[in-house]
């Protein structure tokens, strides 16, 4: 498992506990309607940050029968580099993002190097370009994105971090994105080490927990390797590792909390 130690992830974390970290983007499908959620990291930027790209997002989507170039709706949960690295892979898409996120990533927050670190100037500039191309809709708080898809502002990790409440055949799931990176982060109310506002982040963590009412199978955290191994995979890498996970189906493996 790739190394990512608890002490690098959470305030007061142990230096020798390796949690690993997986990177996801998501796709919601209902009949022929497709909504892509986040665009993953730019593969060219990953090695310099010590991350290993596994598959291009185009190939990942193609594996489940979706052409990135035909996607018309992309929902951005926040603008960290590992979530908006491939905006131009979706040339026909309209994008949605919280106004609070955009204000943060273009404004006074970015004069703090420690907050700026999770964003890439060229990607933020591309978002600004999309505004002027009339391809962005700004969200303010909570609301209904589509029938069966609600968005919930979960500020803290970033100013406009958003989670999605999605109706599936297994009931309502909370796609927490990075409002919750790991199941145990939420269970133990751990303080993740990248944040815009720590107090707000912890409050959002609690709100995410309230959403699932104790049923952890209804939560999809944003970076937990357990997600990769708990759900049935529809596609695999050549080495057999899973790529496209059906997180709307019943888990095939228990949860370690």
């Amino acid at each position, binding site marked *: 498992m790739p190394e990512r130690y608890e002490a690098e992830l959470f305030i007061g974390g142990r230096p020798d506990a390796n949690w690993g970290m997986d990177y996801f983007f998501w796709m919601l499908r209902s009949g022929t309607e497709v909504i892509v959620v986040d665009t993953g990291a730019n593969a060219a930027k990953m090695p310099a940050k010590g991350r290993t790209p596994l598959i291009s997002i185009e190939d990942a989507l193609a594996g489940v029968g979706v052409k990135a170039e035909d996607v018309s709706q992309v929902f951005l949960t926040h603008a960290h580099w590992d979530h908006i690295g491939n905006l131009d892979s979706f040339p026909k898409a309209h994008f949605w993002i919280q106004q609070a996120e955009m204000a943060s990533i273009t404004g*006074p927050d970015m*004069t703090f190097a420690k907050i700026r670190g999770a964003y890439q*100037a060229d990607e933020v500039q591309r978002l600004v370009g999309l505004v002027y191309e009339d391809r*962005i809709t*700004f969200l303010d708080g909570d609301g209904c994105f589509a029938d069966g898809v609600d968005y919930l502002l979960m500020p803290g990790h970033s100013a406009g971090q958003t989670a999605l409440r999605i109706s599936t055949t297994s009931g309502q799931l909370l796609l927490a994105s990075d409002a919750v990176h790991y199941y145990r982060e939420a269970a133990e109310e751990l303080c993740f080490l990248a944040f815009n506002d720590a107090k707000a982040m912890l409050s959002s963590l609690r709100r995410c927990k309230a959403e699932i009412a104790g049923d952890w199978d209804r939560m999809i955290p944003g970076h937990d390797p357990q997600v990769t191994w708990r759900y049935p995979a529809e596609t695999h890498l050549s080495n057999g590792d899973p790529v496209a996970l059906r997180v709307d189906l019943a888990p095939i493996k228990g949860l370690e909390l």
Partner: protein
Amino acid sequence: MTKTWKIYGIRYATQNGRLASHTFLWGSAEEELAGLDYYSWVLVSDDRAIVVDTGGAERKIKGLGRQWIASPLDGLKELGVDPSNVEDVIVSHAHWDHVGELAAFPKARFYMNDLEMESITGEDMTFAVMREAYHAEEAQQLVGLAYEDRLTFLRGDGQFADGIDYTLIGGHSAGQIALTVQTDRGPVVLATDAIHLWEEVEKERAFLIFHDLRQMLKGYRKMNQMVAGDLTRLLPGHDPLIKDRYPIVKKHGDEPFILDLGGVI
């Protein structure tokens, strides 16, 4: 003792003739106005030069049918100010005719109001009619400056330097600021585009380009109060009368090019 500054206006372009219906809210198509002049400014003291707005890019000015006089960068050089060494550039607001030469100041730190940035990168720009006065690449350049740690956000009102205060006016654009500058003849308010033409204050005629009409109108009154009704100490951003009222420092051909706006009328 408060420091005093010279205020130079660099008249880099002009528009000859303009209909009131294109200039003022409820303006008549029958009323022809003198037009608009385009300025960049520089505040100069013994040891410091602070640029206020960079002017618009030549191709954009010409593309809109305005008459180009000379580069605002040449105006600075005429005043002994080398743009490549300028350390401070205040952006009064981010309309295209004010931020067209950001790259000509490679060593500068830039200053702008935080609400202006939020407006030009956010929901306001999803309205085509509001987007018109801004250009994507210039908004992107400003964002780039933030990530290079070369942009300081000014919130509300405050002191910029000894003898220079900034006031958030808003109205014309979300983060439009005015500067109060101490000169040899006392405080002068450089309104830039918080007022385009003196008529806006004299007759409360509303300029046709605005972010918030009510805020713009309140701004006219506020600035009038700031100069206690003495409009010679209130400098609008585009009035063709400026070149007739203030001492000309330098002409370019027959056109007044550099004006001494802190000078005696």
